[in-house]
């Protein structure tokens, strides 16, 4: 028998049932009823100083653990402060659930105190969102929110709950099944597409694995390693995929794109085949699309069908979970290679020669001062591959992506798609139990067991750098 309780208790029971162990937030009028049951629950609530920090902390938690990150805020300004982290999580496909209080249902639409239409505001950059005015709907909405956030292409989901729905009596029953008639992510790739991909790979003499953040999200790094070694083709990892393939591996050419290595950029440009895994042909990787990898055919594997063909035509589209896709591709390719193994020696030799001729580098200041790149590089060496590295946005972010050697997935956190300065808000650091290195160009007053290099720069480096580049271009 389900017991009578108020909506707030039902909410907290729902969050417990969804497996939430920690959430980040700030209380306030409309969400206040939820705080009593939170304190009586098994969930640890971490009080932050700004809701944006709560949102990014939830993102960081999700990126490190692979679980859904949760943040909570009150109506109006509390909710609107979550807008940036929600947009950030949408861009970087991070599983996140945001709970917000809303003014009482009778006051909705009246410009009531601390009213903001957060559902309307966040429609463009949540995977889905809810406005709950009936307490009986709370368990279903929370169950669906966690399901949607964590399945398919992960993303943020917002659940806005009217204050009276938190206060009214209801009963709690955790749903046993989810019925979303319009939501069926396709996980298993089409076998025909896998066969086509294997066939195309054997015809290629200059293939490259173009690896995106999807590989990390799908926990497919082991499978990727197997696949890459099976074919023996070079690998590039995007900003969101740093750590998906060991930097120390011979086949790894580094990061492609605007801030990439010469070898990685050239590999994509000169390739005759891009084996694209969980990447989305973002403009920071491709530059001008019409001049990007003009001679390459494209295999594009992604869980989101809308990414395929969005920016670049795919000769072989594969919709599915990238772990399942790679797992299916390995035996198919093995078989195909037995019949016809292309000779990649000359291609690899070219790429390796580029890598050794044009390594990542930096100038050592003549006045004897220490260059920031050196600091980051040293930090990476000292902290090693088990540390978690968090960057803000800007030049130090790029340096941290370049000069730290990433060997493992989920060790590199940054804001890729939205480029959110403040992503590495100090609040985010609270989420981690690991020792972490925290690279940032800004001063910070954190006094926890975290190493925070403060790179003394008198200006925003990236702006200077881009301005310089701009001058050169003009």
């Amino acid at each position, binding site marked *: 028998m389900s017991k009578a309780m108020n909506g707030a208790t039902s909410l907290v029971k729902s969050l417990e049932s969804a497996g939430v162990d920690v959430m980040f937030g700030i209380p306030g009028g409309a969400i206040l009823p939820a705080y009593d049951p939170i304190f009586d629950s098994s969930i640890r609530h971490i009080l932050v100083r700004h809701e944006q920090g709560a949102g990014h902390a939830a993102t960081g938690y999700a990126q490190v653990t692979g679980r859904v990150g949760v943040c909570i805020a009150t109506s109006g300004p509390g909710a609107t402060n979550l807008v940036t982290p929600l947009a950030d999580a949408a861009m970087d496909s991070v599983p996140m659930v945001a709970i917000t209080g809303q003014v009482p249902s009778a006051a909705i639409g009246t410009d009531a105190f601390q009213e903001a239409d957060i559902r309307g505001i966040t429609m*463009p950059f949540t995977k889905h969102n809810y*406005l709950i005015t009936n307490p009986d709907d709370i368990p279903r909405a929370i169950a669906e929110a966690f399901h949607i956030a964590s399945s398919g292409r992960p993303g943020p989901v917002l659940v806005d709950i009217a204050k009276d729905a938190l206060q009214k009596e209801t009963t709690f029953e955790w749903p046993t099944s989810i019925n979303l*008639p*319009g939501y*069926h992510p*396709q996980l298993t790739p089409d076998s025909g597409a896998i066969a086509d991909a294997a066939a195309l790979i054997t015809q290629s003499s200059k293939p490259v694995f173009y690896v995106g953040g999807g590989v990390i999200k799908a926990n497919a790094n082991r499978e990727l390693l197997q696949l890459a070694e099976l074919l023996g083709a070079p690998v590039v990892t995007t900003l969101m995929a740093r750590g998906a393939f060991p930097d120390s591996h011979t086949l790894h050419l580094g990061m492609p794109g605007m801030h990439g290595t010469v070898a990685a950029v050239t590999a994509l440009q000169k390739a005759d085949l891009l084996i694209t895994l969980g990447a989305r042909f973002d403009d920071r990787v491709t530059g001008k699309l019409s001049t990007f990898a003009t001679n390459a055919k494209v295999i594009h594997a992604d869980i989101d069908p*809308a990414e*395929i*063909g969005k920016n670049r035509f795919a000769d072989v589209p594969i919709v599915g979970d990238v772990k399942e896709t790679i797992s299916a591709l390995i035996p198919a390719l093995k078989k195909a290679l037995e019949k016809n193994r292309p000779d990649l020696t000359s291609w690899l030799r070219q790429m390796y020669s580029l890598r050794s001729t044009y390594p990542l580098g930096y100038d050592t200041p003549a006045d004897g001062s220490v260059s920031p790149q050196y600091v980051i590089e040293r930090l990476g060496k000292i902290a090693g591959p088990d540390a978690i590295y968090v960057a803000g946005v800007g030049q130090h972010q790029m340096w941290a992506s370049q000069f730290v050697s990433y060997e493992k997935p989920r060790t590199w956190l940054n804001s890729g798609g939205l480029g959110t300065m403040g992503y590495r808000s100090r609040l985010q650091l609270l989420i981690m139990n690991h020792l972490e290195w925290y690279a940032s160009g800004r001063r910070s007053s954190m006094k926890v067991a975290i190493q925070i290099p403060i790179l003394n720069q008198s200006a925003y480096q990236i702006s200077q750098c881009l301005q310089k580049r701009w001058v050169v271009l003009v």
Partner: protein
Amino acid sequence: MSKHTLSVLVENSPGVLARVSGLFSRRGYNIDSLAVGPTENPLISRMTIVINVEGHPLEQVIRQLDKLVNVIHIAEVIDSKSVQAELLMVKISATPKNRFDVEAVVETYEAKIVDEDATSITIEATGDTAKIADLLSALERFGIRELVQSGLIALERGSVTLSERTLSTSGIPIANGVQADYQN
């Protein structure tokens, strides 16, 4: 021709129209018309959307639309395989002198006079886009004072129904939406 008509089954839930129209506007897709209303299933509404996909491949529009959680199924309506209609109401200037001519036009287009007074006549008509356009140009010479038009609605010819193709008999929707229609 870059115009396409989509039949979209959506969950009958609050905000769904905002989600669809917001998607079109933020991705820069042009809607020519949009008609939405209830269906034989109270849980489901049906939108008929006429879009102009100049510069955006239809496939991309459909895939983005299909990402909306409340969108259950999308099918393109092919003109030759469907019946289509718009509803038009138009108020024209009328004098005792031209009344007879107006009635003749109304009859030709199987339209209806639904209101009249000393100086105006209000005409109601249904038909496909071409017929409605023709009627309007025939009425132009009388002086169109006001007109209101619905979006296009359309239904496939024959015994096939979109809902049956999409939804199980128990009413619990199970099909995986647009993929089925657009990948083969």
